[in-house]
């Protein structure tokens, strides 16, 4: 069973370190990809903020932490989390 780690209490500087460890980055507000472009939520096409992100296992998928994106992820990948 995959454990869920809440990012609510993680300071932003550590969120950025976390993203860098996973091959991403941040400008302090948005999640950026390796080219420095804003990462878009794969289901809503909206830029993902580090203040409301979900980092899900598999191919390291970063989403906006909203019900539509999360349900879409579960529909696409099954109950992997």
């Amino acid at each position, binding site marked *: *069973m*995959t*454990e*869920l*780690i*809440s*990012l*609510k*209490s*993680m*300071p932003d500087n*550590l969120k950025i*370190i*976390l993203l860098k*460890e*996973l091959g991403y980055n941040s400008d302090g507000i948005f999640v950026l990809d390796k080219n420095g472009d804003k990462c878009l939520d794969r*289901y*809503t096409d909206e830029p993902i903020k580090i*203040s*409301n*992100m*979900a*980092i*899900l*296992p*598999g191919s*390291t998928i970063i989403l906006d*932490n*909203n*019900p*539509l994106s*999360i*349900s*879409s992820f*579960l*529909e*696409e990948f099954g*109950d*992997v*989390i």
Partner: protein
Amino acid sequence: MSSKDPVESASKGVTEAILEWSEEKVKQLVRKFRDRKIAFVHDPETIEIAKEQRQTSEWELFQMYVEDQRLHILFQMGLTLRQLEKKEKERNDLRLRIIKKYGTEGLHIAQFIQNGFFPKYLGNLLVRTRKPDELKSEITDFFKNIEVTNSYIQKTDNVEKEAAAIVARVQSHSPRTYIISGSRSATNKCKQVKNIVMRRITGYTEELYRTEIKEVYFLNKVEK
């Protein structure tokens, strides 16, 4: 008592670590993430709610009959809207997201589910449909055409105008089932609309499902 060490907390299944975040702890968590043992989320409740919806009887029934992935997600959104009934801001945010992604038609499908109409619709259809394959296509078609098979009456609606629109839809599309529903202060208006429609169309019978706050009229096409 929960641990304050995020890594230890994760290994114990605690979802929210509170203190003692550090660069080293983050790196330890990344190793666990790469082993697929953990996921990072801003709000674990969002995932818990999404997972809960996938364990409901309604969902089990729905996915037995409908294979369309878009409808699956909208069904889940309907269940989530229902769960968020007392959280107005979250509910409105989700409604806007649904409209942005799936349009007002998508929202109407989600609201149909939110209102608990699917089990009643399925029950209504089961007694009229003998073949399982026919049932599947009937349900899928119903949702794909929800704008011409379903009307949710609101208290601000004009009775005559709504009734005329429904009559036009029934006459041009001849759906096997047309649903007219309303809740709370709109139930009386809902009944008025239904009465006008039934006077103006032929070949349909009506069936009423009523709860304390909702009325749902199924207009069933008479089978020949």
